[in-house]
């Protein structure tokens, strides 16, 4: 069954480039891809139980809610506590990475990203 991958990023261009990078995995039915521009929408959907995922990719700097705060809220929920969540951001400071680590995010990838590296990491995390 296809693994459900969600990306949350306020930039449409980032979502589009990520979708292009994952095109093959999407087309071959390895993953299904869903995107959210507003982290609040995603959080609402997850909390109400209308959304679910096998892997979540989140930006950090978003106007409505910081990606690390989003991760903290999700990781506090028993339903999603053990699900992989990776951060995809231009931020590369060690301080922020430490915050991510403490919250329990799975990995940190710096933008602009390499298609190959993103695909490789996803395959590794999802075991596909």
């Amino acid at each position: 069954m296809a693994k459900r991958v969600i990306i949350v990023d306020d930039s449409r261009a980032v979502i589009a480039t990520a979708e292009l990078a994952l095109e093959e995995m999407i087309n071959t039915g390895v993953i299904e891809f869903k995107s959210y521009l507003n982290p609040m929408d995603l959080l609402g959907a997850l909390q109400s139980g209308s959304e679910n995922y096998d892997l979540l990719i989140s930006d950090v700097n978003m106007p409505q809610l910081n990606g690390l705060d989003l991760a903290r809220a999700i990781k506090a929920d028993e339903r999603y506590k053990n699900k992989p969540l990776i951060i995809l951001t231009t931020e590369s400071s060690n301080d922020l990475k430490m915050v991510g680590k403490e919250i329990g995010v799975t990995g940190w990838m710096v933008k602009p990203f390499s298609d190959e590296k993103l695909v490789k990491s996803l395959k590794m995390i999802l075991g596909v």
Partner: protein
Amino acid sequence: MDKLRLLIVDDADDNRLVLKAICRKSEDFEIKEAVDGVEALEMTESWQPHIILMDIMMPKMDGFEASKIIKQRYPDIVIMVVTAVLDSRVQDNMSAIGVDVYIHKPIDRELIRYKLQSVGASIRLKTGNFRHLSTKKALNPFNSDIRFFRTFFEIMDTESMMDFGMWLYDKYSAKPTTMVSQFDKVIETFYMLMSQGHKNGDAMSIIIEESYEEFYITIKFDIAIEIDAKLSEMLQEFGEQVIVQGDIVCMRLNLPQESKSIAKETILHEQKVSHANINPLEIKSQAIEEKPQEEKPKVQIFTPTKEIRVIDSEEKVLLHQSFVNKTSAVDYVSELGGDVVNEILDLSSIDEEWEGILGVIEKNPSEENLIYFADAVLNVYVRAINNLFEFTALAYALSSLSVFIKSSAIIISQDKDKIKMLIMLLEHLGKDLTSWREHIFILQDTADIHYVDSSFFSSCMQIEAIINDKHIDADDDNDMEFF
């Protein structure tokens, strides 16, 4: 002579800006600009530049005409033509005029810096000024600070490939050498490399770097070549003597012992390779001291699936700039002058234009329409954002994207898939810009205005890489870091 005088001739403001940024870094140049061929002639008369970077398509007088007149009057001035079109007709024209170096558009920053460095070193050598020569960084990945003399070839066609082989053969066969038995293999391998690279119709540069002890041949391709099984096998045979790295293939050939003395003798004499089809810039730096050989690195042969778009240090700074203080949109807008804010708000008219022109490009994906998009939309954005000191990365990103689209317009316009993808990505980027304007200047609802500046830059870089069919790579910086 402390600084070399460099004249940049291009009618497009942003092209000059980009070239200037590149040139400032590469050599100690005094830089002036001209906007067309006529102004270039005037400046040449009054200022006597050493090097001219010349665009071809310009109003009033084009680059051909200007180069021709300048070369007639001042044959010593090095003219480097910057062009996207390099067919045999253009090439013949330029060779006849006496143009020294061609630079492909889209511009490869690293290569242009490298060429400028080489030309600069050559001029200093001719004028007896060696001040900077010992500090040059080599291109070969084996030993970056070899005290070298350097020869530079531009390979344009099969004939010039043959000539390079002859040159290399002559250089070796004239001397009793320990490499003779291996030499045929070397030549054969290089022919294979060059002909595979040339199948795509791409130009390539060959850079020979040598000291008394070391000898490196580096081929730098405009586009990474595909190394097939046979070629890979040939390369493997050289073991640690070959490194394949992105768009560079470098072979290390130690200079034969016997030729050391010859190398020393010839070092202060100009050697010219005289053949019309080859454009060697014979450059010899002063070999000041011998360097101990570095430990040989492990062989790194791999077949890149795509060429790599490397992120340079200047870009890294912009991407990962950190703002110590958070500035809320409300505070920021209230501190900005009304005129500046109005100019940004006026950009809403550009949104319609943005969509409209993309619609036109979809129907008629011509080079002109792509260039028009860059000029009438992207550059308008750039001018407005240039007034906002807090958004340097965004201004830089959009201006680079504009330059990229303009310089690649002819190639993109001929590729349906690329056009489709570019339109899709630009549509998304346009919406992102609209939303950026809303959050910061209209709704003023963000706690920190910097939330998106670097992200735009990253997106523009990503778009450029996708359209160029390249992989983004910043060494290990963009590896996934697992916690």
